[in-house]
């Protein structure tokens, strides 16, 4: 117990004496944690969105209205035989209209239609989003180039969300790379700044270290105050950052969440705020511990 008090006293004494570098390390930790705190939900939201779109990926093959029942049944069999096709579902004109009606908020648009303009179609689901273009090419007979030769004459045209999904994937993967790089750089910066603080502290306290070695203090007895110093930096940095994030959440994100469904949806699909706080706090303390640990290993030979 008295040892713990001694370690804490030593660590706080050192932090007071090295005000400027300590502040730099704390501020960097704060910035890193805030960014992490913003990035993690964004990351998760884009991930969830992209997966949602990916799982919805399917191709509709529109059919001519004059297709006979026999032709439709024959086509269903052919479609099921195409490689990588997982599921084939027939959607009649009536079903298509019903779906459209349920998706639209303004029902009056549908009511104003006198006839049903929607074609009947086959909805084809692939086992993986990456196989969709192959299925599309096979069904439409475009794989050998030249004039399209659909596997059945009743297929009018395919319509799918391939382009949209590709765009989402491109954007999210670029975003992910940028965010990951930024986070990695910031973590590296905090590691180095915490390390630098500890290094300065070792330097200003070299006499204490010398005396401790001479009178026979053990290696860890000498190290603990420095370790605690680093942890305090992470602790304070994490605390400040979480406070800022919490303020941001209640003043900006929560009011916006009421009007933007995208933000509101994220609350369900991503981590809860307490879990996020716990992760961030653990991360900041961990990073500062690692930073001081590496520095002690390198610069404190005892």
């Amino acid at each position, binding site marked *: 117990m*008295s*040892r713990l008090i*001694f370690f804490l006293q030593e660590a706080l004494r050192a932090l007071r004496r090295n005000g400027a570098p300590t502040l730099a390390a704390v501020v960097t930790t704060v910035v890193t944690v805030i960014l992490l705190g913003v990035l993690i939900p964004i990351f998760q939201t884009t991930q969830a969105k992209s997966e949602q779109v990916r799982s919805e990926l399917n191709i509709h093959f529109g059919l001519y209205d004059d297709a006979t029942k026999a032709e439709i049944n024959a086509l269903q069999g052919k479609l099921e035989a195409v490689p990588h096709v997982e599921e084939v579902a027939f959607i009649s004109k009536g079903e298509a209209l019903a779906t459209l009606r349920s998706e639209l908020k303004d029902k009056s648009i549908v009511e104003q239609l006198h006839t049903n303009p929607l074609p009947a179609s086959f909805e084809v689901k692939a086992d993986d989003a990456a196989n969709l273009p192959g299925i599309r090419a096979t069904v439409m007979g475009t794989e050998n180039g030249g004039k399209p030769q659909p596997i059945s004459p009743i297929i009018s045209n395919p319509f799918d969300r391939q382009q949209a999904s590709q765009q989402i994937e491109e954007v999210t993967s670029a975003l992910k790379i940028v965010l990951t790089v930024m986070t990695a750089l910031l973590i590296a910066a905090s590691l180095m700044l915490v390390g630098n603080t500890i290094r300065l502290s070792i330097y200003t306290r070299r*006499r*204490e270290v*010398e*005396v*401790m*070695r*001479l*009178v*026979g*203090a*053990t*290696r860890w*007895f*000498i190290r603990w105050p420095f370790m605690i110093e680093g942890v305090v930096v992470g602790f304070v940095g994490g605390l400040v950052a979480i406070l800022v994030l919490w303020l941001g959440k209640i003043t900006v994100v929560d009011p916006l969440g009421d009007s933007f469904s995208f933000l509101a949806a994220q609350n369900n699909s991503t981590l809860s705020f307490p879990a996020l706080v716990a992760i961030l706090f653990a991360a900041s303390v961990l990073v500062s511990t690692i930073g001081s640990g590496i520095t002690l290993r390198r610069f404190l030979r005892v």
Partner: protein
Amino acid sequence: MARRKKKNVRDEEPRRPRGRRAPIIELSDVTKVYPGGHMALDRVNLAIGRGEFVFLVGPTGCGKSTLIKMLIRELSATEGAVKIAGRDIGALPEKKIPQLRRNIGTVFQDFKLLPNRTVYDNVAYALQVIGASRAEIRDQVPATLRLVGLSTKLHSYPDQLSGGEQQRVSVARAFVNHPPLLLADEPSGNLDPVTSIGIMQLLYRINKTGTTVVVVTHDREMVDNMRRRVVELYEGRVVRDEVSGGYTEESTTEFGLRMQAEMGVGREGEGLTNGHDQGSLL
């Protein structure tokens, strides 16, 4: 070497268990070559018995400091064995080094005091960092500061003290956990002759409590007058190892008076008037 060892055994208390009869310091054929090829010590053989007071002298660069650093395993011998209390410390695992150092007090020319701590805290620090309890600290620190004659300066900071007083603090710190061996590397190097006598008197008093004291110095006059065992190093070799004449038991006061007389300094020296409670230990 063996003969001298025997002679000094007489100084020890007769009731010591057998295993503890080994000389407290024993160097056999110790050679130290620094990276770059400089040979600091060249096959040094030396044995110092328990309770001895030994001067280690020699010109700068003769290997004195190297020898001291080896005794606390700050350095390791290139060849040969350094034994403390019969144990080869060269073979000591890293983890055991702190334990070794807890049994060896060290005093340096530059005091190595912590400038932002009081006299009391400086001495207490040595106990704190080896995990001593508060009770022990409360008990030992004032007693040790009384021994070195600084009980009135507990709350002074090092820069408010004279050089002699600072060195006393550093002696107190080295001795506060009563190690059986005290090493002093040029303890009076920065001090005037009168103050030096005071420090020597203090070390002598500590020696009288049974602690082995090894003092490194290049103050020839001091060494000649103290009439203690002298080991002289020259270019890494022991060139002289003798017990000066008149190796007699004397009280600390007698010792101080004789030193004053022989070195021709007045009796109002700082070191002498400060040693007011020798009776507690002697």
